[in-house]
């Protein structure tokens, strides 16, 4: 109980500190305050993009940069109804979907990329660009990205936000703008696909 209270208190302190920094940016045009927000949130935002792009570090950094620039330009629109990280992730999600729409105008963005995907050369290109920022074991990392490749982008977003970033279903719904029932359904379908893939590759969950 005390731990829960400590977590809540530290979360409230974080929120207040974020709001104070946002006020300094919007009222006094203090760029150093925005720099502190960038330093604080660069890791979760870049990790989010690394998971969505399955390890394409260069693309992830470009998208993360665009996210922070959009956040800076629209910071006065932040009303504090959700906490800052949720608002930032919502921008990140929209940036990623804008990227998908613009880069593949003729392909359904909900279509999964299977093992027999013809985009092999692109995956090779991605593999060559990934890995510098992510310091986990390369074998494990490729397993994760191979597994995530079985999912369509919406399932991948929901799964990574829940299982890697630890967001609850209502927060995922806030970030993606989907109904909570839809998020649950994407999570369920994604987990079925992942379980099938893992079983085929010899994972027994122990």
């Amino acid at each position, binding site marked *: 109980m005390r731990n829960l209270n400590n977590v809540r208190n530290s979360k409230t302190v974080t929120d207040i500190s974020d709001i104070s920094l946002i006020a300094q940016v919007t009222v006094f*045009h*203090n*760029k*150093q305050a*925005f*720099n502190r927000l*960038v*330093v604080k949130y*660069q*890791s979760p935002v*870049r*990790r989010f993009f*690394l998971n969505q792009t399955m390890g394409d570090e260069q693309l992830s*950094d470009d998208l*993360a*940069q665009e996210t*922070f*620039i959009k956040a*800076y*330009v629209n910071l*006065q629109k932040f009303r504090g109804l959700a906490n800052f990280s949720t608002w930032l992730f919502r921008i990140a999600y929209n940036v990623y979907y804008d990227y998908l729409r613009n880069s593949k105008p003729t392909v359904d963005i909900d279509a*999964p990329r299977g093992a027999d995907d013809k985009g092999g050369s692109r995956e090779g290109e991605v593999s060559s660009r990934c890995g*510098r*920022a*992510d*310091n*986990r074991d390369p074998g*494990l990392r490729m*397993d*994760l990205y191979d*597994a995530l490749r079985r999912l369509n982008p919406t399932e991948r977003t929901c799964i990574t936000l829940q*299982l*890697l970033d630890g967001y609850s279903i209502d927060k995922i719904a806030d970030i993606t703008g989907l109904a909570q029932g839809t998020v649950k359904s994407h999570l*369920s*379908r994604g*987990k*079925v*696909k*992942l*379980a*099938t893939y*893992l*079983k085929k590759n010899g*994972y*027994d*969950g*122990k």
Partner: protein
Amino acid sequence: MMENDKTQQIDLTGTDSLLTSADEQLVDNFFATQSQGVVADNGFSERVMHRLPTTRKYRLNRIWTMACSVVGVVMLWLMNGFSVFVSGLQNLVGDLIGAVAAFVVSCQVSPLLVICSLVVLGVVGLVNAIGNEEQYI
């Protein structure tokens, strides 16, 4: 047609089965081994700060501040404000000399201490303001 497409997608992906608790456990365990550490900054924040656009509000704010400063200087010149300013400075220096002459070593707050504190605060504030402006120009 839509119904056919949906059926086809389910057949292709093979996800028409329900999620069992064993499957969920399998996936949870797999992701538990994939804990992702902090992504190192490696100059990312700096690159973002250098790419920040100058917003219209920021530009207007700067123009407004500069316009007010120019008007202030012109008014000071037109209304012979500089001589008043010089005379004020002379008074201040005189007061300071008087305060130094009357300086008594004690724990009480003296006028000199107050003036010194104000000068230090002013200088620190000015240095911070200039540093903040220069860092991302």
